[in-house]
């Protein structure tokens, strides 16, 4: 109400600028981004073309051929499988570990706060450099982790260079970098929960497993969902760690979507297939991010309401 009366009291001649102003303010940001939307549309076009950089003369529309050929292409199924596996394993493990650490650190104390700040360091390390760090530590010649593995009887444990342990190794790096992300979000969530239900439960002598599953988890759920979807969206697109660690190898053990698209583009110069891969990944992330945004908005409104 007050806003309306104030508006009327304003000097005339201001109305036009008021309508145009927000557009003027956001226009520069939009213009910059439009330049980025064009390549997105180009990707769509490329994905319907037979287009190899090495054979530019043979470039032509083949419509759905890139997509149809995926059905009979074992490499594509491998990509899909590895991507989903990687995202699934990392997100589940990081969620469990992150929740556990958050609960360990829940009580506000100087030590707990100090530890939670320390644990942010991996998250602030560039993922590509984190992969490089682990690469040095798992080097078969001098790596400290290779040495530790040999101490517990794993002679010649090859970490990322063996097909059987490559996935495990990159997952480990992912866990190292991103568990703190889930931890810090859930810790903020835990600390913002109202205390009354917990006090009441303690008074009634309710068993702690009951408190955890019936009070803590449900109340924490919006935070868990947001953190999970955030990670899922990033994890299914993981490039930095995997590329820096193994470049998708050994063989095609770790050719997740973005790595496979990168290799297709720069090594086999198959632009059409690369673009089709990216469109499929985009479709998956678009689907996920729609679920995500609803949750995120709810949480954001709650955070703003508290402010």
């Amino acid at each position, binding site marked *: 109400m007050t806003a309306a009366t104030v508006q009327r009291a304003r000097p005339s001649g201001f109305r036009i600028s*008021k309508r145009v102003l927000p557009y003027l303010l956001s226009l520069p*940001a939009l213009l910059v981004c439009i330049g980025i939307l064009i390549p997105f549309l180009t990707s769509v076009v490329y994905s319907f073309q037979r287009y190899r950089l090495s054979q530019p003369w043979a470039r032509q529309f083949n419509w759905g051929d890139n997509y149809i050929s995926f059905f009979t292409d074992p490499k594509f199924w491998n990509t899909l499988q590895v991507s989903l596996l990687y995202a699934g394993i990392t997100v589940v493990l990081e969620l469990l570990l992150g929740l556990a650490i958050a609960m360990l650190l829940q009580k506000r104390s100087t030590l707990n706060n100090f530890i939670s*700040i320390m644990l942010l360091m991996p998250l602030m390390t560039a993922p*590509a*450099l984190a992969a490089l760090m682990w690469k040095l*530590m798992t080097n078969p010649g001098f790596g400290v982790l290779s*040495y530790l593995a040999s101490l517990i009887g794993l002679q010649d444990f090859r970490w990322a260079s063996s097909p059987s342990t490559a996935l495990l190794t990159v997952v480990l790096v992912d866990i190292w970098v991103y568990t703190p992300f889930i931890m810090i979000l859930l810790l*903020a969530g835990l600390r913002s929960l109202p205390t009354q239900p917990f006090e009441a439960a303690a008074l009634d002598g309710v068993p702690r497993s009951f408190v955890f599953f019936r009070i803590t988890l449900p109340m924490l759920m919006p935070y868990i969902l947001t953190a999970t979807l955030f990670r899922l969206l990033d994890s299914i697109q993981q490039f930095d760690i995997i*590329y820096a660690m193994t470049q998708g190898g050994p063989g095609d053990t770790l050719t997740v979507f973005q790595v496979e698209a990168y290799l297709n583009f720069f090594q086999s110069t198959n632009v059409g297939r690369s673009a089709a891969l990216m469109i499929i990944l985009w479709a998956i992330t678009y689907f996920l991010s729609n679920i*995500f945004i609803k949750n995120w908005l709810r949480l954001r409104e709650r955070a703003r309401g508290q402010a």
Partner: protein
Amino acid sequence: MEHTSLLERILRGIALTLVVIFFMFPIVWIFMMSFQTNETILRIPPQLVFEPTLANYTALITGKLMTAAGTLDIAFMRNLWNSVFLSVTSVAVALLLGVPAAYAFARHKFRGSEDIAFTLLSFRFAPALLVLLPLTLYFQKLGLANTYFGLIWVYQLICLPLILWIVRGYFEDIPADIEYAYRIGGHSWFATFRKIALPLAGPGIAAAGLLAFIFAWNNFVFALVLASADKQPVTVGALAFITSSGIQYGQISAAIVLSITPTLALALYAQRYLVEGLSLGAVKG
């Protein structure tokens, strides 16, 4: 809850110690390696006690590595400078573009404002290569390939959504009445924006800027695809070390330490805002 048994306290202590070791060990270990010569690094079992040397850092900073085979040039300082320049400029541009837009989105519910804001947000979650691969071809045609201008433009994909959504939240937190009161005093919207909104949202803008800097600094794929050696930031440059001949593990470690120190330092400084920034304003720390 208060009556925790001794056993439980011990178990918690052990669990926390393991957590701290797992997350801190790599950083500590690489830090130690950066002060070792190749001979001590290659010794088995790995040494916990060694005579520290600054030779690795000297080699990186002077850009010259003396080996038995002669002098080797290391372009690491160039990479470090590229990281600083690209991150600082990208954040400056993103603040310049993003803060007014954030203000518009927070204060004026204009037609399509939510759609536009969400489109910007969706950039944060779209696969980077979806845009990057066609962009390499465009950049080659436009002459933007391997230019700072092109890179800074693309870095807006990281910085703009972050700044827009965090700063928008801070503007929304300012009661509109304060601004109306100032406007009634006969001040223009720009004066209101500059004298009232900007100072009140100041801490939020600073935090968003710091976070955007960290994300820009840590980015890998944009520069990997769009930049060649002389424009590459540390993330790409340090990785190239491992395949280049002659460079030793101590120097790689020192390069990693120099590359992650700025973001770690900034993160410690801005840790109060990290939760909010990482969740794009959805969770307050």
